Protein backbone atom coordinates (compact mmCIF):
# COMPACT_ATOMS: atom_id res chain seq x y z
CA UNK A 1 0.00 0.00 0.00
CA UNK A 2 1.45 3.31 -1.06
CA UNK A 3 0.24 4.96 2.13
CA UNK A 4 3.10 3.21 3.94
CA UNK A 5 5.75 4.13 1.41
CA UNK A 6 4.96 7.83 1.16
CA UNK A 7 7.54 9.38 3.55
CA UNK A 8 5.20 12.23 4.44
CA UNK A 9 2.59 9.72 5.47
CA UNK A 10 5.11 7.54 7.29
CA UNK A 11 6.11 10.44 9.50
CA UNK A 12 2.52 11.46 10.11
CA UNK A 13 1.55 7.89 11.02
CA UNK A 14 4.36 7.55 13.54
CA UNK A 15 3.37 10.82 15.20
CA UNK A 16 -0.33 9.94 15.21
CA UNK A 17 0.33 6.50 16.70
CA UNK A 18 2.53 7.86 19.50
CA UNK A 19 0.17 10.70 20.35
CA UNK A 20 -2.83 8.37 20.24
CA UNK A 21 -1.11 6.02 22.70
CA UNK A 22 0.25 8.59 25.14
CA UNK A 23 -2.46 11.28 25.37
CA UNK A 24 -5.05 8.97 27.01
CA UNK A 25 -2.58 7.97 29.74
CA UNK A 26 -2.58 11.50 31.14
CA UNK A 27 -6.25 11.86 30.19
CA UNK A 28 -7.11 9.00 32.53
CA UNK A 29 -5.56 10.82 35.49
CA UNK A 30 -7.30 14.06 34.57
CA UNK A 31 -10.70 12.38 34.31
CA UNK A 32 -9.99 10.60 37.59
CA UNK A 33 -9.43 13.97 39.22
CA UNK A 34 -12.49 15.40 37.46
CA UNK A 35 -10.33 17.93 35.63
CA UNK A 36 -11.23 16.87 32.12
CA UNK A 37 -11.18 20.45 30.90
CA UNK A 38 -7.68 21.15 32.15
CA UNK A 39 -6.26 20.28 28.73
CA UNK A 40 -8.36 22.95 27.07
CA UNK A 41 -7.17 25.62 29.49
CA UNK A 42 -3.53 24.65 29.01
CA UNK A 43 -3.97 24.32 25.25
CA UNK A 44 -5.23 27.87 24.91
CA UNK A 45 -2.25 29.18 26.83
CA UNK A 46 0.05 27.03 24.69
CA UNK A 47 -1.27 28.97 21.71
CA UNK A 48 -0.05 32.19 23.30
CA UNK A 49 3.28 30.39 23.70
CA UNK A 50 3.31 29.57 19.99
CA UNK A 51 2.77 33.23 19.18
CA UNK A 52 5.38 34.33 21.69
CA UNK A 53 7.86 31.92 20.12
CA UNK A 54 6.95 33.26 16.72
CA UNK A 55 7.50 36.84 17.91
CA UNK A 56 10.86 35.89 19.43
CA UNK A 57 11.79 34.13 16.19
CA UNK A 58 11.02 37.13 14.04
CA UNK A 59 12.73 39.56 16.44
CA UNK A 60 15.82 37.36 16.23
CA UNK A 61 15.46 37.37 12.43
CA UNK A 62 15.41 33.59 12.15
CA UNK A 63 14.92 32.39 8.60
CA UNK A 64 12.27 30.03 9.86
CA UNK A 65 10.14 32.39 11.86
CA UNK A 66 8.26 29.67 13.71
CA UNK A 67 11.42 27.87 14.84
CA UNK A 68 10.71 28.86 18.43
CA UNK A 69 6.97 28.20 18.28
CA UNK A 70 7.13 24.72 19.80
CA UNK A 71 9.56 25.63 22.60
CA UNK A 72 7.34 28.64 23.31
CA UNK A 73 4.30 26.38 23.52
CA UNK A 74 6.05 23.96 25.88
CA UNK A 75 7.17 26.73 28.21
CA UNK A 76 3.79 28.49 28.31
CA UNK A 77 1.89 25.21 28.74
CA UNK A 78 4.06 24.15 31.67
CA UNK A 79 3.66 27.57 33.30
CA UNK A 80 -0.11 27.36 32.84
CA UNK A 81 -0.26 23.82 34.21
CA UNK A 82 1.80 24.71 37.27
CA UNK A 83 -0.32 27.82 37.88
CA UNK A 84 -3.56 25.83 37.70
CA UNK A 85 -2.08 23.23 40.03
CA UNK A 86 -1.12 25.96 42.51
CA UNK A 87 -4.65 27.40 42.41
CA UNK A 88 -6.12 23.95 42.90
CA UNK A 89 -3.76 23.22 45.78
CA UNK A 90 -4.71 26.38 47.62
CA UNK A 91 -8.35 25.95 46.77
CA UNK A 92 -8.70 29.74 46.78
CA UNK A 93 -10.36 30.56 43.49
CA UNK A 94 -12.92 28.25 41.94
CA UNK A 95 -11.22 26.02 39.38
CA UNK A 96 -13.77 26.63 36.63
CA UNK A 97 -13.45 30.41 36.74
CA UNK A 98 -9.66 30.25 36.75
CA UNK A 99 -9.86 27.88 33.80
CA UNK A 100 -12.22 30.18 31.89
CA UNK A 101 -9.86 33.11 32.38
CA UNK A 102 -7.03 31.01 30.97
CA UNK A 103 -9.13 30.17 27.89
CA UNK A 104 -9.76 33.81 26.99
CA UNK A 105 -6.39 35.11 28.09
CA UNK A 106 -4.51 32.47 26.12
CA UNK A 107 -6.31 32.95 22.80
CA UNK A 108 -6.41 36.74 23.04
CA UNK A 109 -2.72 36.98 23.95
CA UNK A 110 -1.89 34.60 21.11
CA UNK A 111 -3.71 36.71 18.53
CA UNK A 112 -2.13 39.95 19.83
CA UNK A 113 1.38 38.52 19.85
CA UNK A 114 1.16 37.03 16.39
CA UNK A 115 0.01 40.43 15.14
CA UNK A 116 3.02 42.08 16.78
CA UNK A 117 5.23 39.51 15.06
CA UNK A 118 3.87 40.78 11.75
CA UNK A 119 1.78 37.70 11.15
CA UNK A 120 -1.94 37.19 10.93
CA UNK A 121 -4.43 34.94 12.64
CA UNK A 122 -4.07 32.59 9.70
CA UNK A 123 -0.48 31.87 10.77
CA UNK A 124 -1.99 30.39 13.90
CA UNK A 125 -4.40 28.15 12.02
CA UNK A 126 -1.95 25.26 11.81
CA UNK A 127 -1.66 25.34 15.57
CA UNK A 128 -5.37 25.83 16.13
CA UNK A 129 -6.37 22.85 14.01
CA UNK A 130 -3.22 20.79 13.72
CA UNK A 131 -0.77 20.28 10.89
CA UNK A 132 0.14 16.64 11.01
CA UNK A 133 0.50 16.40 7.23
CA UNK A 134 3.54 18.68 7.34
CA UNK A 135 5.58 17.02 10.09
CA UNK A 136 9.34 16.84 9.58
CA UNK A 137 11.73 14.16 10.83
CA UNK A 138 12.74 16.58 13.59
CA UNK A 139 9.08 16.73 14.66
CA UNK A 140 8.99 12.95 14.65
CA UNK A 141 12.01 12.65 16.91
CA UNK A 142 10.69 15.30 19.29
CA UNK A 143 7.41 13.41 19.42
CA UNK A 144 9.19 10.11 20.05
CA UNK A 145 11.14 11.62 22.94
CA UNK A 146 8.20 13.41 24.58
CA UNK A 147 5.67 10.60 24.11
CA UNK A 148 8.28 8.19 25.43
CA UNK A 149 8.63 10.38 28.52
CA UNK A 150 4.86 10.50 29.00
CA UNK A 151 4.52 6.74 28.64
CA UNK A 152 7.47 5.85 30.86
CA UNK A 153 6.50 8.22 33.68
CA UNK A 154 2.73 7.95 33.31
CA UNK A 155 2.78 4.15 33.32
CA UNK A 156 5.82 3.65 35.56
CA UNK A 157 4.34 5.72 38.38
CA UNK A 158 0.75 4.60 37.78
CA UNK A 159 0.18 3.32 41.30
CA UNK A 160 1.34 6.54 42.94
CA UNK A 161 -0.45 8.71 40.39
CA UNK A 162 -3.62 6.67 40.90
CA UNK A 163 -3.39 7.16 44.66
CA UNK A 164 -2.86 10.90 44.45
CA UNK A 165 -5.57 11.55 41.85
CA UNK A 166 -8.03 9.16 43.49
CA UNK A 167 -7.85 10.40 47.09
CA UNK A 168 -5.33 13.11 47.76
CA UNK A 169 -5.89 13.17 51.53
CA UNK A 170 -5.15 9.48 51.79
CA UNK A 171 -2.00 9.89 49.70
CA UNK A 172 -0.85 12.67 52.04
CA UNK A 173 -1.68 10.53 55.07
CA UNK A 174 0.42 7.73 53.57
CA UNK A 175 3.44 10.00 53.39
CA UNK A 176 3.60 10.04 49.58
CA UNK A 177 5.33 13.05 47.97
CA UNK A 178 1.94 14.41 46.94
CA UNK A 179 3.02 17.85 45.90
CA UNK A 180 5.72 16.52 43.60
CA UNK A 181 3.31 13.98 42.12
CA UNK A 182 0.69 16.68 41.51
CA UNK A 183 3.25 18.86 39.77
CA UNK A 184 4.29 15.86 37.71
CA UNK A 185 0.71 15.32 36.52
CA UNK A 186 0.47 19.02 35.60
CA UNK A 187 3.76 19.01 33.71
CA UNK A 188 2.95 15.75 31.92
CA UNK A 189 -0.39 17.24 30.89
CA UNK A 190 1.42 20.28 29.49
CA UNK A 191 3.88 18.11 27.57
CA UNK A 192 1.07 15.93 26.24
CA UNK A 193 -0.76 18.99 25.00
CA UNK A 194 2.18 20.40 23.11
CA UNK A 195 2.84 17.03 21.52
CA UNK A 196 -0.78 16.40 20.61
CA UNK A 197 -1.17 19.96 19.33
CA UNK A 198 0.67 18.86 16.20
CA UNK A 199 -1.99 16.27 15.42
CA UNK A 200 -5.31 17.92 16.25
CA UNK A 201 -4.46 21.52 17.15
CA UNK A 202 -4.99 23.34 20.44
CA UNK A 203 -8.72 23.64 19.96
CA UNK A 204 -9.13 19.86 19.93
CA UNK A 205 -6.12 18.75 21.89
CA UNK A 206 -8.07 17.90 24.99
CA UNK A 207 -10.33 15.61 22.96
CA UNK A 208 -7.41 13.25 22.35
CA UNK A 209 -6.85 12.94 26.08
CA UNK A 210 -10.47 12.65 27.14
CA UNK A 211 -12.47 10.92 24.38
CA UNK A 212 -10.56 7.62 24.47
CA UNK A 213 -11.03 7.52 28.25
CA UNK A 214 -14.75 8.25 27.93
CA UNK A 215 -15.04 5.42 25.39
CA UNK A 216 -12.98 3.01 27.52
CA UNK A 217 -15.17 3.73 30.54
CA UNK A 218 -18.13 2.22 28.73
CA UNK A 219 -16.40 -1.15 28.79
CA UNK A 220 -14.30 -1.17 31.92
CA UNK A 221 -14.85 -1.43 35.64
CA UNK A 222 -11.20 -1.09 36.63
CA UNK A 223 -8.75 1.77 36.46
CA UNK A 224 -5.90 -0.21 34.88
CA UNK A 225 -8.19 -1.64 32.22
CA UNK A 226 -9.71 1.75 31.47
CA UNK A 227 -6.25 3.11 30.83
CA UNK A 228 -5.26 0.17 28.60
CA UNK A 229 -8.42 0.36 26.51
CA UNK A 230 -8.11 4.14 26.25
CA UNK A 231 -4.56 3.84 24.90
CA UNK A 232 -5.71 1.30 22.34
CA UNK A 233 -8.70 3.41 21.32
CA UNK A 234 -6.57 6.54 21.10
CA UNK A 235 -4.05 4.86 18.83
CA UNK A 236 -6.73 3.34 16.59
CA UNK A 237 -8.61 6.65 16.27
CA UNK A 238 -5.51 8.64 15.34
CA UNK A 239 -4.21 6.11 12.82
CA UNK A 240 -7.64 5.48 11.30
CA UNK A 241 -8.43 9.18 11.00
CA UNK A 242 -5.12 9.91 9.38
CA UNK A 243 -5.43 6.97 6.98
CA UNK A 244 -8.84 8.13 5.79
CA UNK A 245 -7.48 11.60 5.03
CA UNK A 246 -4.88 9.99 2.79
CA UNK A 247 -7.69 8.95 0.48
CA UNK A 248 -10.20 11.73 1.10
CA UNK A 249 -9.39 15.41 1.34
CA UNK A 250 -10.44 15.99 4.94
CA UNK A 251 -8.86 17.86 7.85
CA UNK A 252 -7.10 15.09 9.86
CA UNK A 253 -7.39 16.57 13.35
CA UNK A 254 -11.08 17.31 12.99
CA UNK A 255 -11.74 13.89 11.45
CA UNK A 256 -9.99 12.08 14.32
CA UNK A 257 -12.11 13.90 16.86
CA UNK A 258 -15.36 13.35 14.94
CA UNK A 259 -14.52 9.64 14.67
CA UNK A 260 -13.95 9.65 18.42
CA UNK A 261 -17.30 11.26 19.11
CA UNK A 262 -18.98 8.66 16.87
CA UNK A 263 -17.13 5.85 18.61
CA UNK A 264 -18.25 7.23 21.95
CA UNK A 265 -21.88 7.37 20.83
CA UNK A 266 -21.70 3.79 19.58
CA UNK A 267 -19.96 2.59 22.75
CA UNK A 268 -22.51 4.30 24.97
CA UNK A 269 -25.31 2.83 22.86
CA UNK A 270 -23.90 -0.69 23.12
CA UNK A 271 -23.55 -0.32 26.85
CA UNK A 272 -27.07 0.99 27.29
CA UNK A 273 -28.39 -1.89 25.17
CA UNK A 274 -26.50 -4.59 27.09
CA UNK A 275 -27.58 -3.08 30.39
CA UNK A 276 -31.20 -2.94 29.28
CA UNK A 277 -31.02 -6.57 28.16
CA UNK A 278 -29.35 -7.81 31.34
CA UNK A 279 -31.78 -5.95 33.59
CA UNK A 280 -34.71 -7.27 31.55
CA UNK A 281 -33.20 -10.74 31.93
CA UNK A 282 -33.15 -10.50 35.72
CA UNK A 283 -36.62 -9.06 36.07
CA UNK A 284 -39.26 -11.43 37.33
CA UNK A 285 -41.64 -12.55 34.58
Amino acid at each position, binding site marked *: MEIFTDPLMQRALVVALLVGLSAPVIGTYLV*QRRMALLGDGIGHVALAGVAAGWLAGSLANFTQRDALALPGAVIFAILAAVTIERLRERGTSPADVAMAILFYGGIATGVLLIGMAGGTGSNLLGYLFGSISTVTWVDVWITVALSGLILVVGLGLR*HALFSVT*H*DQDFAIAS*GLPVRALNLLVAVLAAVTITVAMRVVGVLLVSALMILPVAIAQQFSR*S*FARTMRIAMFVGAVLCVAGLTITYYRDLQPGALIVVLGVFAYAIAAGIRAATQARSSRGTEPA
Partner: protein
Amino acid sequence: MTSPALRAADVHMALGGAPVLHGVSFDVAPGETIALMGGNGSGKTTLVRAIIGALPLTSGSIEIDGRPTSPDARAHLGYVPQRISASAGVSATATEIVVSGLLRGRRLAPPPHAKARALDALRAVGLADLASRDVNAMSGGQQQRVLIARAMVRRPTLLILDEPVAGVDLPSQEVFSEALTQLKAGGATIVVVLHEVGMLADLIDRAVVLDRGRVVHVGEPPHAHGDHAMPGHEHLHPHDDDPNRPGPDTPTFEITV
Protein backbone atom coordinates in the same frame (compact mmCIF):
# COMPACT_ATOMS: atom_id res chain seq x y z
CA MET B 1 10.56 8.22 78.89
CA THR B 2 8.93 7.28 75.60
CA SER B 3 7.31 10.03 73.59
CA PRO B 4 3.56 9.86 72.97
CA ALA B 5 2.47 8.16 69.77
CA LEU B 6 0.52 11.29 68.97
CA ARG B 7 0.64 14.70 70.58
CA ALA B 8 -1.41 17.78 69.77
CA ALA B 9 -0.03 20.84 71.52
CA ASP B 10 -2.08 24.04 71.57
CA VAL B 11 -3.34 23.49 68.04
CA HIS B 12 -5.06 26.50 66.48
CA MET B 13 -6.60 26.20 63.05
CA ALA B 14 -8.71 28.29 60.72
CA LEU B 15 -10.75 27.27 57.68
CA GLY B 16 -11.63 29.84 55.05
CA GLY B 17 -10.45 32.57 57.41
CA ALA B 18 -12.73 31.50 60.25
CA PRO B 19 -11.07 30.07 63.38
CA VAL B 20 -12.19 26.46 63.94
CA LEU B 21 -9.81 25.07 66.59
CA HIS B 22 -8.81 27.18 69.58
CA GLY B 23 -5.86 25.60 71.35
CA VAL B 24 -6.48 21.84 71.26
CA SER B 25 -4.01 19.78 73.30
CA PHE B 26 -3.91 16.08 74.11
CA ASP B 27 -1.51 13.15 74.14
CA VAL B 28 -2.12 9.60 72.99
CA ALA B 29 0.17 7.00 74.53
CA PRO B 30 1.61 4.22 72.36
CA GLY B 31 -0.90 1.40 72.12
CA GLU B 32 -3.74 3.53 73.43
CA THR B 33 -7.13 3.80 71.73
CA ILE B 34 -8.75 7.22 71.89
CA ALA B 35 -12.28 8.14 70.88
CA LEU B 36 -12.43 11.66 69.49
CA MET B 37 -15.96 12.86 70.11
CA GLY B 38 -18.09 15.99 69.92
CA GLY B 39 -21.13 17.38 68.13
CA ASN B 40 -21.36 18.17 64.44
CA GLY B 41 -19.06 20.99 63.53
CA SER B 42 -17.02 20.78 66.73
CA GLY B 43 -13.83 20.39 64.70
CA LYS B 44 -13.10 16.64 64.75
CA THR B 45 -12.54 16.24 61.02
CA THR B 46 -10.49 19.43 60.89
CA LEU B 47 -8.21 18.10 63.62
CA VAL B 48 -7.92 14.72 61.92
CA ARG B 49 -7.00 16.31 58.60
CA ALA B 50 -4.30 18.30 60.38
CA ILE B 51 -2.93 15.12 61.95
CA ILE B 52 -2.60 13.46 58.55
CA GLY B 53 -0.93 16.57 57.14
CA ALA B 54 -3.70 17.63 54.78
CA LEU B 55 -4.39 20.98 56.49
CA PRO B 56 -1.92 23.51 57.87
CA LEU B 57 -2.01 24.68 61.49
CA THR B 58 -2.32 28.35 62.33
CA SER B 59 -0.16 27.73 65.39
CA GLY B 60 0.74 24.93 67.76
CA SER B 61 2.18 21.57 66.82
CA ILE B 62 1.31 17.98 66.09
CA GLU B 63 3.88 15.27 66.71
CA ILE B 64 3.87 11.61 65.75
CA ASP B 65 6.25 9.48 67.85
CA GLY B 66 7.89 12.66 69.07
CA ARG B 67 8.56 13.94 65.54
CA PRO B 68 6.74 16.81 63.85
CA THR B 69 4.28 15.51 61.25
CA SER B 70 6.10 14.99 57.98
CA PRO B 71 5.72 12.55 55.11
CA ASP B 72 8.32 10.33 56.78
CA ALA B 73 6.57 10.43 60.14
CA ARG B 74 3.40 9.30 58.35
CA ALA B 75 4.87 6.28 56.58
CA HIS B 76 3.14 3.92 59.03
CA LEU B 77 -0.04 5.88 59.49
CA GLY B 78 -3.38 4.51 58.38
CA TYR B 79 -6.29 6.82 57.63
CA VAL B 80 -9.97 6.27 57.01
CA PRO B 81 -11.66 9.46 55.82
CA GLN B 82 -15.15 10.54 56.77
CA ARG B 83 -17.88 9.83 54.27
CA ILE B 84 -16.00 10.64 51.12
CA SER B 85 -17.33 8.34 48.56
CA ALA B 86 -14.67 5.89 47.51
CA SER B 87 -15.43 6.70 43.90
CA ALA B 88 -13.77 9.18 41.56
CA GLY B 89 -14.00 10.06 37.88
CA VAL B 90 -12.73 6.73 36.58
CA SER B 91 -13.99 3.35 37.72
CA ALA B 92 -11.66 1.53 40.06
CA THR B 93 -12.05 -1.89 41.62
CA ALA B 94 -11.99 -2.45 45.36
CA THR B 95 -8.69 -4.30 44.93
CA GLU B 96 -7.08 -1.40 43.09
CA ILE B 97 -8.11 0.99 45.85
CA VAL B 98 -6.87 -1.27 48.63
CA VAL B 99 -3.57 -1.86 46.81
CA SER B 100 -3.05 1.93 46.85
CA GLY B 101 -2.90 1.55 50.64
CA LEU B 102 0.36 -0.35 50.25
CA LEU B 103 2.29 2.68 49.01
CA ARG B 104 4.11 4.68 51.63
CA GLY B 105 6.72 7.40 51.75
CA ARG B 106 9.17 6.88 48.91
CA ARG B 107 7.70 3.49 48.02
CA LEU B 108 5.70 4.51 44.97
CA ALA B 109 4.97 1.02 43.69
CA PRO B 110 3.20 -1.77 45.53
CA PRO B 111 5.34 -4.47 47.18
CA PRO B 112 5.30 -8.11 46.03
CA HIS B 113 2.08 -10.00 46.78
CA ALA B 114 0.19 -6.70 46.95
CA LYS B 115 -2.91 -8.28 45.39
CA ALA B 116 -2.99 -11.15 47.85
CA ARG B 117 -2.62 -8.76 50.77
CA ALA B 118 -5.38 -6.56 49.39
CA LEU B 119 -7.64 -9.58 49.09
CA ASP B 120 -6.90 -10.55 52.70
CA ALA B 121 -7.79 -7.03 53.83
CA LEU B 122 -11.02 -7.11 51.82
CA ARG B 123 -11.87 -10.50 53.28
CA ALA B 124 -11.37 -9.03 56.75
CA VAL B 125 -14.13 -6.49 56.07
CA GLY B 126 -16.36 -9.09 54.46
CA LEU B 127 -15.91 -7.89 50.89
CA ALA B 128 -13.95 -10.78 49.37
CA ASP B 129 -16.76 -11.42 46.90
CA LEU B 130 -16.72 -7.84 45.65
CA ALA B 131 -12.94 -7.52 45.27
CA SER B 132 -13.04 -6.92 41.54
CA ARG B 133 -16.27 -4.93 41.59
CA ASP B 134 -16.22 -1.26 40.59
CA VAL B 135 -16.61 0.76 43.79
CA ASN B 136 -18.95 3.14 41.96
CA ALA B 137 -21.36 0.21 41.86
CA MET B 138 -21.17 -0.35 45.61
CA SER B 139 -23.41 0.89 48.37
CA GLY B 140 -22.21 3.61 50.73
CA GLY B 141 -21.52 1.14 53.52
CA GLN B 142 -19.60 -1.18 51.18
CA GLN B 143 -17.51 1.74 49.98
CA GLN B 144 -16.77 2.66 53.58
CA ARG B 145 -15.55 -0.90 54.18
CA VAL B 146 -13.23 -0.63 51.15
CA LEU B 147 -11.72 2.47 52.75
CA ILE B 148 -11.28 0.61 56.04
CA ALA B 149 -9.53 -2.23 54.21
CA ARG B 150 -7.29 0.29 52.43
CA ALA B 151 -6.12 1.62 55.81
CA MET B 152 -5.81 -1.81 57.47
CA VAL B 153 -3.75 -3.34 54.66
CA ARG B 154 -0.94 -0.97 55.68
CA ARG B 155 -0.71 -2.68 59.09
CA PRO B 156 -0.50 0.80 60.57
CA THR B 157 1.17 1.58 63.87
CA LEU B 158 -1.00 4.69 64.14
CA LEU B 159 -4.52 4.44 62.79
CA ILE B 160 -6.73 7.52 62.41
CA LEU B 161 -10.37 6.86 61.59
CA ASP B 162 -13.01 9.54 61.00
CA GLU B 163 -16.41 8.00 61.74
CA PRO B 164 -15.42 4.66 60.21
CA VAL B 165 -18.63 2.86 61.07
CA ALA B 166 -21.03 5.53 59.82
CA GLY B 167 -23.42 3.69 57.52
CA VAL B 168 -21.82 0.29 58.14
CA ASP B 169 -24.25 -2.47 59.11
CA LEU B 170 -24.00 -4.20 62.48
CA PRO B 171 -22.46 -7.50 61.32
CA SER B 172 -19.75 -5.60 59.45
CA GLN B 173 -19.18 -3.36 62.45
CA GLU B 174 -18.56 -6.49 64.47
CA VAL B 175 -16.02 -7.74 61.92
CA PHE B 176 -14.43 -4.31 61.91
CA SER B 177 -14.29 -4.10 65.69
CA GLU B 178 -12.62 -7.53 65.71
CA ALA B 179 -10.00 -6.29 63.23
CA LEU B 180 -9.34 -3.21 65.39
CA THR B 181 -9.00 -5.40 68.47
CA GLN B 182 -6.32 -7.43 66.71
CA LEU B 183 -4.51 -4.32 65.57
CA LYS B 184 -4.62 -2.96 69.11
CA ALA B 185 -3.33 -6.25 70.49
CA GLY B 186 -0.42 -5.86 68.08
CA GLY B 187 0.45 -2.58 69.79
CA ALA B 188 -1.08 -0.08 67.36
CA THR B 189 -2.26 3.33 68.53
CA ILE B 190 -5.77 4.21 67.40
CA VAL B 191 -7.64 7.50 67.21
CA VAL B 192 -11.22 7.03 66.16
CA VAL B 193 -13.82 9.76 65.65
CA LEU B 194 -17.18 8.54 66.88
CA HIS B 195 -20.53 9.97 67.80
CA GLU B 196 -21.15 7.15 70.23
CA VAL B 197 -18.83 4.42 71.34
CA GLY B 198 -21.35 1.71 70.46
CA MET B 199 -19.76 -1.53 69.39
CA LEU B 200 -16.24 -0.24 69.98
CA ALA B 201 -16.84 0.47 73.70
CA ASP B 202 -14.52 -2.31 74.89
CA LEU B 203 -11.64 -1.01 72.80
CA ILE B 204 -11.74 2.60 73.91
CA ASP B 205 -9.29 3.58 76.64
CA ARG B 206 -10.14 7.26 76.80
CA ALA B 207 -12.29 9.83 75.05
CA VAL B 208 -11.30 13.34 74.02
CA VAL B 209 -14.42 15.46 73.57
CA LEU B 210 -14.39 18.64 71.50
CA ASP B 211 -16.92 21.42 71.62
CA ARG B 212 -16.71 24.34 69.23
CA GLY B 213 -13.00 23.85 68.72
CA ARG B 214 -11.99 23.30 72.35
CA VAL B 215 -11.30 20.16 74.36
CA VAL B 216 -14.04 20.02 77.00
CA HIS B 217 -13.54 16.52 78.36
CA VAL B 218 -10.79 13.89 78.53
CA GLY B 219 -11.40 10.53 80.17
CA GLU B 220 -14.35 8.17 80.31
CA PRO B 221 -16.34 8.19 77.07
CA PRO B 222 -19.59 10.07 77.59
CA HIS B 223 -22.66 7.89 77.32
CA ALA B 224 -25.06 8.31 74.48
CA HIS B 225 -27.97 8.90 76.82
CA GLY B 226 -28.99 12.28 78.15
CA ASP B 227 -25.95 13.92 79.57
CA HIS B 228 -24.24 17.17 78.86
CA ALA B 229 -20.80 15.85 78.19
CA MET B 230 -21.73 15.81 74.51
CA PRO B 231 -22.46 19.42 73.82
CA GLY B 232 -24.11 20.12 70.56
CA HIS B 233 -26.44 17.20 71.05
CA GLU B 234 -28.64 18.91 73.62
CA HIS B 235 -31.51 19.23 71.23
CA LEU B 236 -31.13 15.92 69.53
CA HIS B 237 -32.14 12.56 70.87
CA PRO B 238 -31.38 9.46 68.87
CA HIS B 239 -34.17 6.93 68.54
CA ASP B 240 -32.32 4.55 70.73
CA ASP B 241 -35.13 2.08 71.24
CA ASP B 242 -36.25 1.89 67.64
CA PRO B 243 -35.45 -1.64 66.46
CA ASN B 244 -35.47 -0.55 62.81
CA ARG B 245 -32.70 1.90 63.34
CA PRO B 246 -30.11 1.45 60.60
CA GLY B 247 -27.09 1.54 62.90
CA PRO B 248 -25.54 3.55 65.69
CA ASP B 249 -23.94 6.05 63.40
CA THR B 250 -26.77 6.68 61.02
CA PRO B 251 -29.41 7.53 63.58
CA THR B 252 -32.65 9.14 62.69
CA PHE B 253 -32.82 12.17 64.89
CA GLU B 254 -35.89 13.96 66.04
CA ILE B 255 -35.93 17.55 67.13
CA THR B 256 -37.54 18.00 70.52
CA VAL B 257 -39.63 21.12 70.56
